[in-house]
């Protein structure tokens, strides 16, 4: 069983549209939508939810007003500025915790001299197991302003792996979040291959450099695809050259195509429509599918031959 994780650094480069197309092309993989802040893959794959699980993670401090003597130890000890004083109607002082700022460390709970602070578990969202026209899908929804997105990503991946093993799926497609922080790290650690999707813009170039460094930091083989490459062909060349220098392989290019938005409006993966960019996505998928064969490690992954034509299949 292999895990392909699709990330981008910069948001809005087309991760979800491309991942949904891969789901159609792969025929029978397990999908994991790990962009738990703004999960969108279900808008294309229209899952029928079969299981729904609450996501409890961490705790939050809650001060019991009637036991609070207003001594202020909690405010002094809290390093997150989450405790603030107030005055009751009879002018007696009390303290209250801002649940958004509270990081659930438990310091105030432990050191409150009156033991006036409760520490209930926190509901941070939910995760779902669904059936789609392309196979099983695990997805989630982080609660509003909630913490622990990394833990929720790990939960989604673990469940996807369990399903893949039990039902003998050979591939897990992971739609990752933007950025390089906690949920991204949780999305890619231990994966077999990272596909970084970027766009030919100064931001796309800058952000790709950082995700490639992250993938290298975790020692994961990485492929790169420039989406909307023809918006700025020179920039595309530059990005691809830099990616190769960073030890990544250029796996394909996708042309700018308004049909991508059109497919999204119709709730379809782009490859389920007739559009010019479909052949680009299919070629990209073919390349990745070959790379994901168990033999890719023997073939070697680094592309040492810079070339202008981006589509290149491993010699087999």
């Amino acid at each position: 069983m292999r895990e392909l994780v699709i990330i981008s650094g910069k948001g809005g480069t087309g991760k979800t549209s491309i991942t949904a197309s891969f789901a159609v092309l792969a025929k029978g993989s397990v999908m994991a939508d790990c962009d738990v802040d703004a999960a969108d893959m279900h808008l294309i794959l229209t899952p029928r939810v079969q299981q729904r699980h609450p996501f409890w993670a961490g705790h939050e401090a809650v001060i019991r007003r009637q036991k609070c003597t207003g001594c202020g130890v909690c405010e002094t000890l809290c390093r997150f500025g989450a405790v603030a004083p107030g005055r009751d109607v009879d002018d007696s002082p009390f303290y209250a915790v801002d649940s958004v700022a509270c990081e659930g460390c438990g310091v105030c709970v432990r050191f409150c001299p009156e033991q006036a602070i409760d520490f209930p578990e926190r509901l941070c969202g939910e995760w779902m197991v669904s059936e789609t026209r392309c196979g099983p899908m695990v997805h989630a929804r982080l609660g509003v302003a909630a913490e622990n997105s990394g833990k929720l990503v790990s939960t989604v991946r673990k469940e996807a792996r369990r399903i893949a093993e039990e039902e003998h799926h050979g591939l897990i497609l992971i739609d990752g979040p933007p950025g390089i922080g906690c949920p991204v790290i949780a999305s890619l650690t231990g994966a077999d291959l990272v596909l970084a999707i970027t766009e030919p813009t100064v931001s796309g170039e800058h952000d790709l450099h950082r995700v490639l460094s992250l993938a290298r930091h975790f020692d994961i083989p990485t492929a790169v695809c420039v989406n909307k490459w023809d918006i700025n062909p020179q920039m595309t060349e530059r990005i691809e050259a830099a990616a190769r220098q960073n030890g990544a392989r250029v796996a394909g290019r996708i042309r700018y195509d308004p049909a991508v938005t059109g497919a999204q409006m119709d709730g379809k993966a782009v490859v389920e429509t007739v559009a010019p960019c479909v052949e680009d996505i299919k070629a990209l998928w073919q390349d990745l599918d070959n790379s994901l064969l168990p033999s890719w490690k023997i073939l070697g992954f680094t592309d040492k031959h810079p070339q202008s034509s981006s589509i290149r299949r491993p010699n087999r």
Partner: protein
Amino acid sequence: MILAVASGKGGTGKTTVSANLARTFGAVVQLLDCDVEEPNAHLFLQVEPKGRETVTVPVPLVDQARCHGCGECGNFCEYKAIACFGGTALVFPEMCHGCGGCVMVCPAEAISETAKRIGVVETSAADHITLIQGRLDIGVAMAPPLIRAVKARLQHNTPAILDAPPGTSCPVIATLQDADFVILVTEPTPFGLHDLPLAVDMVRELGMPFGVVVNRFGIGDQRVHKFCAEQQIPILLEIPDDRRIAEAYSRGELIVDALPEYRELFESLMAQIIRVPENTDQRRA
């Protein structure tokens, strides 16, 4: 006044709005790039940092000579950042939130704190704009402490624009706290329409006045506008879907510099924002 620019979905144009707004601000303004995982504002202001400061967080340091492996620290730590194995405490600094709890609970007084580097804050100047941006080190998981360090450098007597990271979780919350007004940037597509209500819920939860900017106006349909009308959310600005904008953006040029006909549009944004809190109360409905 502190304005924050946020969005649920990534790539909707937060940095475009922040940087163009800063350029047309008409007064001295601070631009804080709080997307410390992928900071981009400097690419559009085309400035090199003048100052760079290292940002650290406190993490535990165990004095092995004193530690007798009782396990109190590991039992206390909510983040599994410290644990006892084979009679001694081991620290996993990347998991640590820096609460200081382990130091306090250790009965042997074997734990002190040491500084762990998480990134840098860079400061630069471009005409009337002071840019302050955070840059998280590769492999560091937690962005909020660095975002707080960026915001700690904000001068409260000068207006500020905060460019937030995408999403609705802790890094965004860390950015939005203490803002006076939030601009939510979206696009008129199904993904934009799906992620906007999540961002709206978040801003309402925080009790902040806000309005919406619709970017790439013309690519999708009217559903984002319909949602805003139903929810009585003011639309502050529509940025048309114009290939010339995309091309200027790709080269790192600000819209208002490359295409001066859009200058007025961005100048009107500030006027729209000032009108919002007077006319409608966007706090928790």
